[in-house]
């Protein structure tokens, strides 16, 4: 059971409507506790690949399994239970713009019915850590891009997920906070969370060395840091 991949894709293809296949015949198996970057040019399909992992879309072909369950055969409530174990930082944040930073971060805990006192404790603590404590009750739409991104990251990790998927999470933050957020991901990974981070940030890739899932020409290849040249090429 412990050898079962946390996320597994078999012969997965995805297309939008009648358009061409964005990804073709993808095979990927992520082990529990692994850490991967996800790279590829803009439009290569990074968001598409992640969205199948966080169960926003089903593949047009092939099968996706999370925690050993084929999502094609899971019912709606089962999907909800899987999603609770997957923290996501969306490329476009997807925050509730009219709610406060606090309520946004509290959301994953509220949907699973956690006690409100416990929620206040956890959320306050985490917001302090991502340096949003000054404006916790501010309406999200009034926050800066960098602040929104940190709220989005806090929301993704608040429920101590088994899997953390981050879609270009350091794109909008200042360069000095990016390493701090990376350290958060690394810490979570050390505690057992499986992590996939889509990024263009070469500094990060060089500083924190982990294998990379590289998307090119609708297919996928895994590049390890030891591979030297190729790794540097990304």
């Amino acid at each position, binding site marked *: 059971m412990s050898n079962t991949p946390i996320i597994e894709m078999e012969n997965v293809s995805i297309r939008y409507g009648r358009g061409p296949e964005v990804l073709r015949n993808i095979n990927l198996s992520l082990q529990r506790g692994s850490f991967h970057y996800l790279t590829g040019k803009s439009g290569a399909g990074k968001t598409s690949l992640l969205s199948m992992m966080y*169960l*926003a879309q089903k593949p047009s072909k092939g099968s996706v399994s999370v925690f050993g369950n084929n999502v094609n055969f899971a019912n709606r409530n089962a999907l*909800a239970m899987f999603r609770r174990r997957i923290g996501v930082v969306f490329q476009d944040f997807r925050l509730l713009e009219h*709610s406060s930073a606090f*309520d946004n971060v509290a959301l994953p805990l509220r*949907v699973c*019915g956690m006690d409100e006192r416990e929620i206040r404790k956890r959320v306050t603590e985490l917001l302090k850590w991502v340096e949003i404590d000054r404006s916790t009750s501010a309406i999200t739409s009034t926050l800066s891009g960098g602040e929104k991104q940190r709220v989005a990251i806090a*929301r993704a990790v608040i429920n101590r997920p088994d899997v953390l998927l981050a879609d270009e999470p350091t794109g909008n933050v200042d360069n000095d906070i990016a390493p701090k957020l990376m350290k958060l991901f690394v810490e979570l990974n050390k505690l057992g969370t499986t992590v996939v981070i889509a990024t263009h940030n070469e500094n990060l890739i060089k500083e924190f060395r982990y294998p990379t899932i590289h998307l090119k020409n609708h297919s996928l290849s895994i590049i390890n840091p030891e591979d030297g040249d190729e790794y540097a090429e990304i």
Partner: protein
Amino acid sequence: MLRSNTMRHRELPLSADSSNLFLKVMISIAVFLFAVTLAGVLSINSMLVNWNSSILGSLTVQIIPVNGVDKLKAKNETIVQEQRAVALLEAMPETQKVTPLTDAQLEQLLKPWLGDDVDLSNLPMPRLIDVKLKKGAEINFMTLAEKLATVAPQASLDNHKLWLNKLINFAGGLKMLALSILVLVIGITSGAIFYSTQTSLGLHKDIIEILHLLGAKDTYIAQQYAAKTALLGFWGGIVGVLFAIPTIFVIAHLAQQIEGGIINEAHLSWGGWTAILCLPLFSMLVAMQTAYYTVKRTLEKMM
């Protein structure tokens, strides 16, 4: 069903939906119509109970004497018809006892009107049949009158009761009509709630998608809709009932001015008033259930 913490935190800004005012007005009108119609149904019911009890229990069939030149032949014919009528009445499952009045009994009845000296045997005497009905048995007077006419053309039923029976049939029809209006009102209101809820779901698609992606079950979203719509149902119901009460009084006042005292028998019991006062709770429940069901059903079609 609604946990306190989900009650306090509603991620969906449903109270700003523009369809809310429409729904509230719609529910108010629906509850108003429902209350007035319900008052009608309950009044008709109490009237029917009164009328029914006055025609229950017994009835009298009269055989009007056959007129003929041959007096004896005519009298025999009258008696034959009486016997046929008695046979028919006895064969009915609703009758308990059928008693044709004897000549002596008839004379006894008529003496006060005609005096002692009249020789009744020379007069064309009507025959009377007293029918006792079984407890709780109901008879359709119209069909009975028709059946009697085929075996005894001279038979006639108590006029007042026959007329009352027509009135009962009419009121019964009116009651069915009112009941179907009640069903229709509930149907139309639920339909309006169904469509505005669906529209609202489309409007808040982005937020709902976020909630789903964070692991919210459909019930989490459905509860927020149920809570909001329950409030609309309740306040709409209060407004509707507030308008309905004076309307019911005005209608009752007008009805009492009709001559004949028929409508006097129509009155709203305390139970009836309680039912009308409870309508806001009823509309709240219907609104809540409809919204909940709509959300569950609509979301099931999404991934």
